[in-house]
């Protein structure tokens, strides 16, 4: 029958494409220059470790976490993969990651910034080696600002002066409703997201003060525009209509062709004397618990994170490597130097699963308090209520 024939034809399509387990599989979400850098590093590894072949698979960032969580338990996952650290708690709790406690040693760990390693630790087990980090710093326009401010009072004063001189210019801009961007002020006022014991601390007094601070900057000092999107920030900064921007290393890509700007570590909060501490995000290389070639996988991880590889990535790609031994004279530039100083004042983003519940309620609270006039204490309490929803 024709129908049977059709099914037979379709069945033929199931042929080919066997999974090749002879290779070490490495997943990543890199693009462009970073992907090329990774490929050449991997080829160097293959040359040094004879007989080991590595297959690189680039996975879109949006699909990465999901795909990993379903693939590894079924045995279809990678051996090694490169990803941000924030889902480690999730994956470790589900047994998808191999702890490196018996593999790594002290001299290896000493090479990295301790905060970057801490980001990869969950429940006293280390789950990966840090490759690079991302955090926020203060970008400023050199034609408008001569010297980077050391305190927030200085920054506000400079911003107000620039605004007074030309009303079409703004003093400072960053996405106001994002907790990720607000975190420097939160930590600078002595607040934190979670206190000991997994209890949200977003409604505590320091947090309220930090939100009140931002409100003041928007509505009273009027140095920040009321509705800010990242696209707006880019276009304003490029048009020289913006003095200060709180942003991360990826911002450099958007400033291509633009010059006379610089980066400095975030200022100290004048009200408390504590430095504004942004969240630290770490990109690590992790080992799958279901891998059949753990020794080779670990060797690849060691190779990718070692000092001379890190130096290459730092000097040619400008990547903020987590290997502190790589930051010798002449390896980086002023840009990486600013971020290197910042990483010492950064707070690792918690990798516990509960962290993911923070973002949307915090976003609601920030937008309500800063842009819609709701009192900060009330907005933050509502956020805490939302975070604990479903418990």
């Amino acid at each position: 029958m024709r129908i049977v024939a059709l099914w037979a034809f379709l069945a033929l399509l199931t042929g080919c494409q066997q999974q090749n387990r002879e290779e070490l599989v490495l997943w990543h979400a890199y693009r462009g220059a970073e992907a090329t850098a990774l490929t050449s590093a991997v080829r160097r590894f293959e040359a040094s470790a004879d007989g080991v072949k590595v297959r690189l698979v680039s996975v879109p960032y949006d699909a990465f976490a999901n795909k990993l969580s379903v693939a590894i338990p079924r045995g279809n996952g990678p051996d090694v993969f490169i990803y941000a650290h924030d889902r480690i708690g999730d994956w470790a709790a589900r047994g998808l990651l191999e702890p490196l406690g018996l593999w790594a040693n002290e001299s290896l760990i000493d090479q990295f910034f301790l905060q970057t390693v801490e980001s990869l630790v969950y429940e006293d087990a280390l789950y990966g080696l840090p490759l690079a980090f991302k955090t926020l710093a203060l970008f400023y326009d050199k034609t408008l600002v001569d010297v980077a401010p050391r305190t927030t009072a200085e920054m506000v004063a400079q911003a107000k002066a620039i605004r007074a001189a030309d009303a079409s210019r703004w003093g400072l801009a960053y996405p106001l409703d994002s907790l990720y961007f607000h975190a420097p002020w939160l930590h600078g006022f002595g607040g934190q997201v979670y206190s000991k014991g997994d209890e949200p601390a977003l409604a505590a007094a320091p947090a309220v003060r930090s939100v009140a601070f931002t409100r003041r900057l928007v509505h009273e000092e009027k140095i920040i525009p009321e509705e800010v999107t990242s696209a707006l920030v880019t276009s304003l900064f490029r048009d020289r209509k913006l003095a200060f921007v709180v942003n991360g290393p990826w911002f450099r890509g958007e400033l291509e062709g633009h010059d006379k700007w610089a980066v400095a570590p975030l200022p100290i909060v004048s009200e408390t004397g504590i430095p504004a501490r942004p969240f630290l995000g770490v990109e690590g290389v992790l080992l799958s618990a279901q891998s059949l070639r753990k020794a080779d996988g670990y060797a690849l991880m060691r190779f990718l994170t070692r000092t001379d590889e890190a130096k290459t990535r730092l000097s040619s790609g400008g990547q903020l490597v987590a290997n502190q031994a790589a930051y010798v004279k002449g390896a980086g530039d002023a840009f990486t130097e600013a971020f290197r100083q910042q990483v010492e004042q950064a707070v690792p983003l918690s990798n516990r699963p509960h962290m993911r519940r923070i973002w949307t309620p915090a976003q609601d609270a920030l937008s309500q308090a800063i842009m819609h006039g709701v009192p900060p204490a009330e907005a933050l309490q509502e956020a805490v209520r939302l975070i604990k929803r479903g418990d």
Partner: protein
Amino acid sequence: MKQTPSTAMNIATHGGLICVVVATLFPVLWVIKMAFRPSQTFATGLNPFPTTFSVANFTDLFAEPFFWEQLGNSFIVAGVTTVAGVFLACTSAYALSRFRFPGRRAALMGFLVTQMFPGTMMMIPLYHLLDQLMLLDRVLGLVLVYSTTAIPFCVWMLKGYFDTIPRAIEESALMDGASQFTLFWRIILPLSRPAIAVTALFSFMTAWNEFILAATFMSDEAAYTLPVRLQQYVGQYTAEWGHFAAGALLVSLPVMILFLVLQKHLVGGLTAGGVKG
């Protein structure tokens, strides 16, 4: 006798249509702007027309590794989905339209009901299922999953269309000794060309534009489809909008070409004098 519309009506109609087309294409102008300028930032602001012109984004796209394989994969997956989807839908719709058998109501409702459970929740069990059936990383796996979205609509639409074809045509053919299959193949299908064209386009679109399942089920870059490549340009903090826009334009082209081709079938099958009893 057909009435030809007056010139005034004509101008008004064309004028109205042009307004609608402009309003429709306006947002797409920004996509074009982003595709043809060398930067990777998202276009905001008030000017939708490109101020600089460069094809760098397109050349970058073609130079990416595996681009041609992925393009081929997209065509294969979408093509097979269209063929299988339309074929299976035609047969099922024919049965549902022409025969009264137990379970007919249930089957019709069943096809509808399968669309009601949110797809995002089904992804993980679907992955397990496909893995168990050894269909992961294979064209057939993706095709089957896409068909489950495409088939219900195709079945319903074709059944509705088949319902409008008078039984008299079939009865006279049966009396002339035609078999059930000849009836289906030579009489019903040609008369339903408009509906088949619509369902073919729909099946193609369903498979062509889908990205999340393709990204999850395929574990090798050479096996990805084009939308997955497009989504690779969207990173954690930023996206390469120039490349994405260029890719978006590329991805839309085959659809528009397919529609152009299918247009000539959007002609009534019963208007050619027809078969009158």
